[in-house]
């Protein structure tokens, strides 16, 4: 099978098709572009929904820590997603450790929220569905943008790359939604703010596993 002619033929075919390609930007640069998109969406769309007591909330250390931790986690998840689209990148232990630590902080701060037992199902879902709708509006562009950015690269582990992308997009949308929703209650936050991040991550992984491997069967140029 290793006749020179067979290998030469393959190399000839590849060389013939070797048009100039636009080199992929470094993941760090692509992350900045993506963060700019997220910020733009947050300003343009999120501004319409911003909570009336935001100024007061921003004076709360626990709220600030929660928002800052999730911003760091979302940004690093986005960076890892973009790195996964480049063969040969290894996840750094520091980055993974920081992501886990920040997400743990966010989870612990969520668990400190009070539980309101007086919800009726109607009111619970009325508030919740509004948050879900806003989350969907806010996450759509950053999520699709990041998946397209991955598709532009060469993600070898498609499902993992897309899961990271989903976690990043939904994670940063979580931050925007915390600046929009006034409901500080454990069940509401758990079901309508945290759960969408988890479901979005899983959905993204599935979509990515299905769609991203197609980079192998198409030209990058």
């Amino acid at each position, binding site marked *: *099978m290793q006749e020179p002619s067979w290998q030469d033929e393959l190399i000839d075919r*590849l*060389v013939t098709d070797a048009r*100039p390609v*636009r080199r992929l930007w470094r993941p760090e640069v692509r992350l900045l572009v993506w963060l700019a998109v997220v910020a733009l969406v947050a300003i343009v769309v999120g501004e319409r929904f911003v909570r009336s007591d935001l100024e007061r909330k921003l004076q709360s250390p626990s709220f600030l820590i929660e928002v800052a931790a999730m911003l760091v986690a979302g940004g690093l998840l986005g960076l890892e997603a973009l790195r996964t689209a*480049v*063969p040969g990148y290894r996840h750094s232990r520091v980055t993974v450790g920081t992501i886990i630590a920040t997400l743990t902080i966010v989870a612990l701060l969520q668990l400190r929220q009070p539980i309101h037992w007086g919800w009726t199902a109607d009111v619970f879902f009325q508030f919740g569905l509004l948050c879900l709708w806003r989350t969907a509006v806010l996450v759509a562009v950053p999520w699709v943008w990041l998946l397209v950015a991955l598709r532009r*690269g*060469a993600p070898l582990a498609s499902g993992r790359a897309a899961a990271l992308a989903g976690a990043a997009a939904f994670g940063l949308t979580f931050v925007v939604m915390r600046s929009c929703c006034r409901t500080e209650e454990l069940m509401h936050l758990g079901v309508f703010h945290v759960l969408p991040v988890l479901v979005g991550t899983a959905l993204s992984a599935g979509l990515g596993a299905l769609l991203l491997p197609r980079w192998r069967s198409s030209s990058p140029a």
Partner: protein
Amino acid sequence: MARAQAGDRDAYRSLLEEIGPIVLGWLRRWLTDAEDLADVYQDTLVHLHRARHTYDPTRAFEPWLFAIARNAAADHGRRRRRRRAWETAVDDLPEVAMEGEAFEPALAEALRALPRPQREAFTMLKLEGLSVGDAAARAGVSPGALKVRAHRAYKALRALLGS
């Protein structure tokens, strides 16, 4: 590689010729079957070609190259495991009723309609009476691949002959 990204075909050819033996040597550590080796080698070079825009000249080339090769080998292994699982299911080849050496004109017609590899597999196994191993050796494929061809032939013949 940076020159190849800019469209320098000579540089790209030199690179591919240089890395070919390295990739083959690396793949040989994991793959013993010559056919598998050729498949994965080809996949690696094709994937490298399609991912060449992702290479960053400020980073080392080897991790990038071997990540692609490792992925191609893993993909091949997954495909092979799936195929093997399916091959087991058709281990007992279904019998096709034949009456002596003169078979029905309809069957002859249906056989002509089959793709050549399937027709060959059917003919060797059912008309010439060869064993799976002998037929596979003659066709130059693995016994599993030959069974798959034969199974597809039976399926197609059933559809064509309506039974």
